[in-house]
C-alpha cells in the first residue's frame, strides 16, 4: 500500500503562491504520524539565510544583503537543520518535522545532483535533531522522510519518501499526497504537570553549571514521566482503544447533547510510581546548598481522533519532556554566567514560559522570556512558520511568569532560611515582607496625597516660631 498523507487545502495555495512567482523555495513539512492516518498540519518556508552571519565567519566585509539562493544546490543543510531544530521547539508532543518541500523548475527527483542534495539535507537534519534525544525531534517510529516537490513550470505536485538515519535502504518510495477540503478535526488533550523537587547541590571538582544541573533535572524527569501511569478524564484506558470511541461512549451516556458539538478537550492526569531501582544504601554527601525546582509545564497535545490511547499517552509524555528541554536550551543559550553558584547566596533561574499560537485548527507553542511581550511570539511565528498572526491570537495565560518577589525576599535574608526549606516557609516569609511593603507604600502615598496641606502646615509652624 502506498503511503498516504493528508494535508490541509491551504497548503496547496501556499505552494502555488510560490510556484507561480517562479521562485525557488524550500521549507519544512510538519505533521503527525499515527497508525490510523498521517496528517500534515502545516508547511513552512525556511527563512532566507541571513548573509551577515555566514560572511562574518570567514571574515569578509561584504555585509550587504546577499542575493537569495537561486536553486537547491545553494541551500545550506545546516541552515535547514537549524530551522527544523527551532520549529521542533514550537511543536507539541506527537508532532514532528516529517520532511521538506521544494518549489523549483528542476525536477529534484530526476536530476542526480539535486536528489543527492535533498538526501544530504534530510540526513543532516536527522543527525542534528538526534543530538538531543530528549527533544524527541525525530519521529521515534519512522525514519522515512517526505519530499514534496512542486514544479514552478508545470505546477505538478510530486511526493516521495526516502529513509534517513543509520539504515542503508536507498529506495525511493512514492507517496500519495491528499488535500482535505474540510479542516481536520483534532482531539485536544490538556494537562498541567507539576514539579516540586528539592535536590542537593553536589559540586564536583570541576564545578557545576546551570546547564549541567538542568540536564540532570531533565534526565530524571524523563525517567519519572516515562514510568508514569496516565488517566484520561480520570479513568485508566485500554491503550489500543481509539480516542474517538471514548468520546462516543460518553455521548451515549448523556445522549441529550447534540452530536454537533466541538469535541471537548480531554483532561490528562499522570501518576508516578516510585522507583524501585535505587541502591539500598544511605548516601552521605557533602553539599553546597539546595535546589528547589518547582512550577508547572502546561501541555496541550492534539491528536487525530482515530489515534489510539497509547499514541496519545506517548505524545503527552513527549510533550512535557520536549517542552522542558526547549526551555532549558533556550535559557542556557541566553545565559551570561553559567555558574550555578555565583557570589549571591540565592540564585534564581527562570527559563522562558510557554505560550500557545494558533496554526490552522490547532495550536503550536512558543516561549517567552521573563519580561518579553506576546508580540515576540509573532516574530517567531512569522520567521519560523511563515504565518501572520495578531497579538490577540497568542494565548499567554496557560503559564504565568514566576513571582520574583519570592526570590527577592529570600535573597534579603538567607540566614533565616533552612537548608532544603519547604516552599511554604518561603511564602510565609514573603507574606510578612509583603505586608510590610504594603504599609510603606501606604505611608508614602498618604504623604504624597497630603503633601500640600502638610507643607503648608509646616510653613505655618515655621512662621509662628
Amino acid at each position: 500500500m502506498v503511503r498516504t498523507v493528508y494535508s490541509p487545502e491551504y497548503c496547496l495555495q501556499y505552494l502555488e503562491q510560490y510556484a507561480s512567482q517562479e521562485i525557488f523555495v524550500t521549507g519544512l513539512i510538519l505533521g503527525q504520524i499515527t497508525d490510523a492516518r498521517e496528517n500534515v498540519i502545516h508547511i513552512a518556508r525556511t527563512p532566507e539565510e541571513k548573509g551577515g552571519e555566514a560572511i562574518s565567519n570567514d571574515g569578509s566585509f561584504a555585509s550587504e544583503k546577499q542575493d537569495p539562493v537561486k536553486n537547491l544546490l545553494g541551500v545550506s543543510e545546516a541552515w535547514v537543520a537549524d530551522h527544523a531544530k527551532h520549529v521542533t521547539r514550537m511543536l507539541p508532543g506527537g508532532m514532528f518535522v516529517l520532511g521538506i518541500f521544494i518549489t523549483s523548475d528542476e525536477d529534484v527527483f530526476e536530476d542526480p545532483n539535486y536528489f543527492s542534495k535533498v538526501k544530504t539535507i534530510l540526513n543532516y537534519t536527522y543527525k542534528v535533531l538526534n543530538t538531543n534525544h530528549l527533544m524527541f525531534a525525530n519521529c521515534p517510529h519512522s525514519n522515512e522522510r517526505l519530499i514534496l516537490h512542486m514544479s514552478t513550470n508545470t505546477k505538478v505536485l510530486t511526493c516521495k519518501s526516502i529513509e534517513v538515519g543509520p539504515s542503508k535502504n536507498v529506495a525511493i518510495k512514492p507517496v500519495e499526497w491528499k488535500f482535505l477540503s474540510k479542516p481536520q478535526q483534532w482531539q485536544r488533550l490538556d494537562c498541567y504537570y507539576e514539579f516540586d523537587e528539592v535536590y542537593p547541590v553536589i559540586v564536583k571538582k570541576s564545578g557545576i553549571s546551570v546547564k549541567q544541573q538542568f540536564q540532570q533535572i531533565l534526565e530524571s524527569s524523563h525517567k519519572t514521566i516515562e514510568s508514569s501511569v496516565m488517566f484520561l478524564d480520570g479513568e485508566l484506558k485500554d491503550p489500543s482503544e481509539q480516542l474517538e470511541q471514548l468520546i462516543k461512549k460518553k455521548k451515549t451516556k448523556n445522549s441529550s447533547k447534540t452530536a454537533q458539538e466541538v469535541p471537548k478537550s480531554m483532561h490528562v492526569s499522570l501518576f508516578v510510581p516510585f522507583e524501585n531501582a535505587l541502591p539500598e544504601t544511605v548516601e552521605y554527601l557533602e553539599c553546597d546548598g539546595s535546589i528547589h525546582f518547582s512550577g508547572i509545564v502546561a501541555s496541550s497535545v492534539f491528536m487525530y481522533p482515530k489515534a489510539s490511547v497509547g499514541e496519545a499517552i506517548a505524545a503527552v509524555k513527549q510533550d512535557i519532556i520536549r517542552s522542558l528541554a526547549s526551555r532549558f536550551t533556550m535559557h542556557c543559550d541566553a545565559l551570561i554566567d553559567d555558574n550555578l553558584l555565583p557570589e549571591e547566596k540565592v540564585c534564581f533561574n527562570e527559563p522562558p514560559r510557554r505560550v500557545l499560537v494558533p496554526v490552522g485548527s490547532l495550536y503550536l507553542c512558543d516561549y517567552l522570556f521573563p519580561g518579553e511581550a506576546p508580540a515576540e511570539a509573532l516574530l517567531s511565528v512569522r520567521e519560523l512558520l511563515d504565518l501572520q498572526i495578531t497579538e490577540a491570537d497568542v494565548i499567554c495565560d496557560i503559564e504565568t511568569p514566576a513571582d520574583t518577589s519570592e526570590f527577592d525576599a529570600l535573597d534579603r535574608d538567607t540566614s533565616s532560611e533552612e537548608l532544603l526549606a519547604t516552599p511554604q516557609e518561603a511564602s510565609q516569609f514573603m507574606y510578612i515582607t509583603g505586608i510590610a511593603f504594603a504599609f510603606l507604600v501606604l505611608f508614602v502615598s498618604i504623604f504624597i496625597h497630603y503633601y500640600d496641606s502638610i507643607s503648608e502646615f509646616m510653613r505655618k509652624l515655621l512662621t509662628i516660631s
Partner: protein
Amino acid sequence: MSPRLKISKYVIERLSQIDTEESTGCLYGLMYDGILLVVGLSLELFEKEKNTYNQLLLNLPAEIELCGVIKFSDCLTIENKTKEILQDVDITDNPLVIIISQEKDIKAHFLVHDKFEETSYEVMEKDELWKQFLHVRLNTILPLTCEATIAGVKNILQNKRKKIASGQVSFHIDGTAVYLFGIASDVGVTGTSTEANIGELIDSMSAEQPSKKKKVNIHSLDIVPVNLVMKTTKDILSDKLVKTAVKMMTTQRKPAFCISMPLKVDTLAMIHRNTKLSELYTVLVEAACRSLRLLESVLLEQLGQEGIGDGAGLRLPETFHYLPEQLGHFLTRVVPKAIPDESMERERIQLHEQLALPTDKPMFRRGNAYTTYGGRLVNPHEALPLPSSGPNVTVALVRGRYTYHHYMQDNFNDDGWGCAYRSMQTIFSWFRYQGYNTTNIPTHREIQECLVNIGDKPTTFIGSRQWIGSTEVMFCLETLLGVQSRIIFANTGAELQSYTPELIHHFQKHGSPIMIGGGVLAHTIIGVEYNSEKNETRYLILDPHYTGADDITTVVGKGWCGWKTSDFWNKTAHYNLCLPQTRPCI
C-alpha cells in the same frame, strides 16, 4: 449507644495467662459493622512518663486503635493515669474497661457518660478472625534527600506525610486495574465497581473457587499487595490552580551534609472482608503515615546516637512484620539494616514485656518475620486431626514453624541417599523461623563442605552421594549454627520406647524437630504421644523420603506426615537420635 463487643480468642487466652505486677494494661481493637472487636493488648509500663501505647500503636496494622484499658484488680476504680489513657481513646465514644480479678474472671464495661456499664461480649474464635479479616500490605519506596540533622529528617518526613495525606496520591492494587483516588480527583475508585468490597476482589484474584470454603492457614493469610503512585498533574478545573512556569532556585550553604536514601515503606492494615474499596483510601493513608512515623523514629534514634550523630554512619531502616502464634495480630518493627539482632536485645525484651509474651524464646528477631517460605509446606502436621487427649495421655509437639524438606526438592535428585540431609534441612528451617539465627538453609553440598572443613570427612566426600547420620547432623548444627545437640543411642527399635520421657521433655523444653537415623533410613520426629494406661508411645513422623509435589492433601493423606506406632521402627536395627538443644534468649 455503645457498640457491640467482641473479643478475639487470642486476647482471652492471653488475659487468662497473664501473670504481672503491673496494674494496668491497654486494649487495642477495630470497629466494623457497629461492632468493637478487641484484637490485642499490652501492659502499660508507664516508663519515663511517656505513654508507651502511643509508640506501640505505630507497630500495629492500621485500623487497629487504642480502645480501652485492662485493670488487674477486683474492683472498678480508675486512677488518674488510667483516666489519661481513656481520654486518648478515639475509636469509640465509649472506652472499654476490662477488669481481671485474681481468679482470672473477665468482666467488660463501657464507660458511658462517666459511668461504667457492664456489657456482655462474644468471643471470636481464631479461625473466624482470620476468615473474616484480611490484610492489605502497602509497599512503596520514597526517595528521601535531606540535611543530615534531626531537624532535617523531621522536616522532610513531615512533608512526605503531608503529601500523602493531601489527596495527591493514588493507591494501586497490584495485578489489577484498580486504582483508589483521594480528594484531589473526582473519582474514588477506578477499574471496578464503586460498590465492590475487598473480599470479593481477593476472591476474584485467586484462581481457586471462592465457594470452596478453604481452611484458614495462619501461615498463608490473605494479604492484598498495594503500591502507591503520586499524582503529578494539577486539576485543570481547580480554582486554586497556580500556573507559575517552571523555575529553579538555588540556595547556597556551606558546609553542609545531606543524606540520600530510598525509604522503603512497607505497612499493613487489618480490615474486614466486607470493607468497600472506596473506604480503603483513608485506611491506606493512615497505614503509610504510621509507617513513616516508625521509619522516622528509627532514623532519629540513630542520628541521636554518638558516633553517627552526623549521619555518616546512618543505616537504612528495614521493616519486618511478625505474627507470633499467641499474639493474634501483626506487629511491625523497623530496625537499622545490618545491625545484628543480638545487639538489639534490650528493645526486644521491652516489647516482650509490654505485650506480655514469654521471655525465653525469640519472637521479634529478623528470622521470626512473616514470610512466604519459598513455596514449601509449613507445619504440615497442623493439617492432621489433633490426637485425642485424656487424663492418661501426654502429647508433646514441635513448637513454632518449620518447613517440610524432602527428596527431589530444588530440582535436586537425592532419591535414595539424601534423607538425613533433608531431615537436617527441616531442623535448620526450624532454627531459622524461630529467629535463633538468619543462616540460610544449607544445600547438600554446603552440608558436605561443612563436614569436610571440620575434618570429619575426606575431600572426596564433596559432591558424593554418601549417607550421613545423626552425628553428622550434630556436627553441622554445632558448626553452622552453634547449636548443641544431645545424642541418644537405642540398641533396638524396641528399646526406643524407653526414651519416651526424654522425648516428651525435649519437645516441652526445646520444641525443635528431632532427627532419627536407623538401619538405612532417616526420619524427623516432630511429636510424641504417650498413653500411660496402655504404656504405648506414638510418634509424629515427618518423612523425608517423599518424592512428590508439595501438596498438603497428599502429604497428610498418604501418611508422609503422620502418627506412627512403635511398629514403625525396625525391631532389630540400631537407632541414633539427634536432639537439637535451645538456650533461653530473646
